[in-house]
């Protein structure tokens, strides 16, 4: 078993001490570093350059559907609450136009090996609307025909109707991620998300029946009124359905940043102590049920592709979380979506009107982004290794980036020293390794190597806490 795979032991005192804000490193540099000076022309140029690599990267496409039928109070995502299904039609029409603008930028021999629909609630779209989106993607890009391709969709089980999953499977979807959070009725009422075990189970069963390769379930700890008893029961119920993957996210209460959270009664939130207890419970139960730890908030069954990739060192991390698809250029479609093409990041406007105006005027809607320099690429490589493998091979990194590690990272190593003293990380001449104690705090270790966190800024970026 690789170093990362065993479920890390739980050390409350340590977690408490290191429970401080830090980026989640779905990208490095992180989105707050993107600048408005980087626009559509820069994105198009990056696409053109990426076509001219000796082996142009395969493509991974993310499409964002921002709408939700009802507001979950914990949500920190970019979403729009509406029950007006007509909005789906107008949004889809523009998505299709964006796809038509994006497709020609990429050479036709670049296969799409991953599609992910995220939100918001992707199943705000009807299956036929999702079908239309896929058709436009198929027209303007070339889909891989390999069985290893991933077409995945986030589903809100409350709005999945009979026959929907079959229709999605027919279109080629083979992975689904279901939001659950907690089945405890008191918690569900407090966060405005009432969802029965039965309707959730029905969706999981349908996915299995129609040949989905994996089902993921999202849980959240730290929600109002959550208790060990209630969350424990939720964990038992979920584990009984054997989802191939499980994400157990920490609820970050930042109402000044995420307005929906203002509706949460702060007095009902568990204390830091209780919250840690919930995480401990999740770790113990998942461990006992045979799940492996993938990294950050993610767990998977040993036979799942993520576990297998982790064993082979083929695990990667991008805006969609952990993935087995190494070295793809990532193309984002829809409001707020992020693309990662070549050495660049670019992001669409986060507000719907700005995105709509760009599409309607026939322009790529790039709002901001950045060109990575050699230092960014080096640190991105290092942080990727830490987040995915839990360790960094120093000589390999030195060779690849032509640096002397000890000299180049003298300041980072100094920042790492207290973490080393606390036994979170081991540092030798050839390796930096997160210990079993440190694996729940990977982002704190990674943050030591983040150049932007350690330089003076006009306005400090705000990040959620680690646990």
């Amino acid at each position, binding site marked *: 078993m690789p170093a990362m795979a065993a479920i890390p032991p739980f050390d409350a005192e340590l977690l408490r001490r290191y429970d401080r804000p830090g980026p989640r490193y779905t990208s490095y540099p992180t989105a707050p570093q993107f600048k408005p000076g980087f626009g559509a022309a820069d994105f198009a140029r990056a696409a053109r350059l990426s*076509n*001219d*690599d*000796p*082996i*142009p*990267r395969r493509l991974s496409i993310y499409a964002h559907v921002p709408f939700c039928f009802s507001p979950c109070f914990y949500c920190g995502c970019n979403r729009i609450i509406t029950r007006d299904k007509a909005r789906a039609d107008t949004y889809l029409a523009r998505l299709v136009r964006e796809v038509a603008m994006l497709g020609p930028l990429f*050479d036709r*021999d670049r296969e799409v090996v991953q599609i992910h629909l995220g939100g918001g609630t992707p199943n705000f779209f009807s299956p036929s609307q999702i079908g239309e989106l896929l058709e436009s993607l198929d027209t303007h890009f070339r889909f891989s025909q390999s069985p290893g391709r991933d077409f995945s969709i986030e589903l809100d089980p409350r709005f999945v109707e009979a026959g929907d999953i079959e229709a999605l499977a027919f279109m080629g979807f083979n992975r689904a991620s279901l939001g659950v959070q907690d089945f405890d009725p008191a918690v569900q009422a407090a966060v405005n998300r009432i969802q029965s075990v039965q309707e959730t189970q029905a969706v999981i069963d349908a996915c299995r029946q129609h040949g989905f390769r994996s089902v993921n379930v999202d849980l959240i700890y730290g929600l109002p009124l959550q208790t060990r008893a209630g969350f424990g029961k939720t964990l038992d119920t979920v584990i009984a359905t054997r989802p191939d993957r499980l994400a157990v996210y920490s609820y970050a209460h930042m109402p000044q940043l995420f307005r929906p959270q203002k509706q949460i009664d702060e007095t009902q939130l568990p204390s830091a102590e209780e919250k840690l207890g919930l995480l401990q419970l999740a770790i113990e139960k998942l461990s006992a049920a045979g799940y492996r730890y993938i990294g950050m908030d993610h767990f998977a069954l040993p036979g799942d592709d993520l576990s297998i990739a982790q064993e082979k060192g083929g695990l990667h991390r991008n805006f969609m979380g952990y993935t087995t698809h190494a*070295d793809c250029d990532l193309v984002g479609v829809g409001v707020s979506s992020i693309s990662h093409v*070549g050495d660049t990041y670019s992001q669409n406007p986060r507000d719907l009107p700005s995105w709509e105006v760009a599409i309607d005027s026939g322009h790529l809607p790039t709002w901001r982004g950045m060109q990575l320099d*050699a230092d960014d690429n080096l640190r991105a490589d290092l942080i990727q290794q830490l987040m995915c493998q839990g360790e960094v091979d120093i000589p390999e990194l030195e060779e*690849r980036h*032509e*640096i*002397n*590690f*000890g*000299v*180049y*990272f*003298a300041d980072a190593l100094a920042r790492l020293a207290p973490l080393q003293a606390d036994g979170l990380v081991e540092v030798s001449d050839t390796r930096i390794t997160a210990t079993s104690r440190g694996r729940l705090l990977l982002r704190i270790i990674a943050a030591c190597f983040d150049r932007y966190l350690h330089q003076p800024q006009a306005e400090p970026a705000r990040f959620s806490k680690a646990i």
Partner: protein
Amino acid sequence: MSPTGRRPRHNPIADDGDQLRFCSTCAFSDACLSQGYNKTDLMDLHVLVEHVGPYHEGEHIFREGDEFNAIAAVRAGTVKTYVLDASGQEQVLGFHLPGEIIGLNAISEARYPCNAVALDTVMLCRFSFPKMALLATRMPGLQAQLFRLLSQDIGKAALLAGDYSADQRMAAFLVALSRRFAQRGFSATRLHLTMTRTDMANYLRLAPETVSRVLRRLQEDGRIRVDRRELEITDPAGLEDLARAVLRS
């Protein structure tokens, strides 16, 4: 080692010469030194015209039809030479690395018969050709070197002449690149490819998709590893085997 810990790149920056020393990649230094001419002597003869550049990516160094009066040695970067055929299609003639000469094919004409464009940041050393030729009559070693450089230009014909597979041609192209880098003191196994796949395809007379397919196959066979523009030859012997028929050595 710089104080920031970043090591100099393995290519394509050459050690710069100065008033007295030749650049480490200079195409003529050996020939001249063996004849007892050092750099000061050449300066006296006003043969060594000037260091020019930098030229930036996409910038032309000369164009077809420009008056020919100088040949230039690449000091840093990569220069692509090409012509446009009757239908306006680009035909890539070659890629010139540090230490290599551009403009040699202009010798028989009074004008440059091709275009030369910088693929990245390029620095050149320009020589007055009439004066160089005059000097060569007095320096047999220099003359021999000029002939050697001329004959190197013919390599591409061999690459395309025979009935070779795309894999063999690609292997030969990579082996030749690796040898040229090694000759100038750069890494023979880690190459930074400054040319686009369109250029590579054009040069090798393959479709761009074929270039990628062949490279991917070589990668799956464990002969090379490609990450964007960085290419590592992981099995030099295996790649040489494949290239042998084309390179005949």
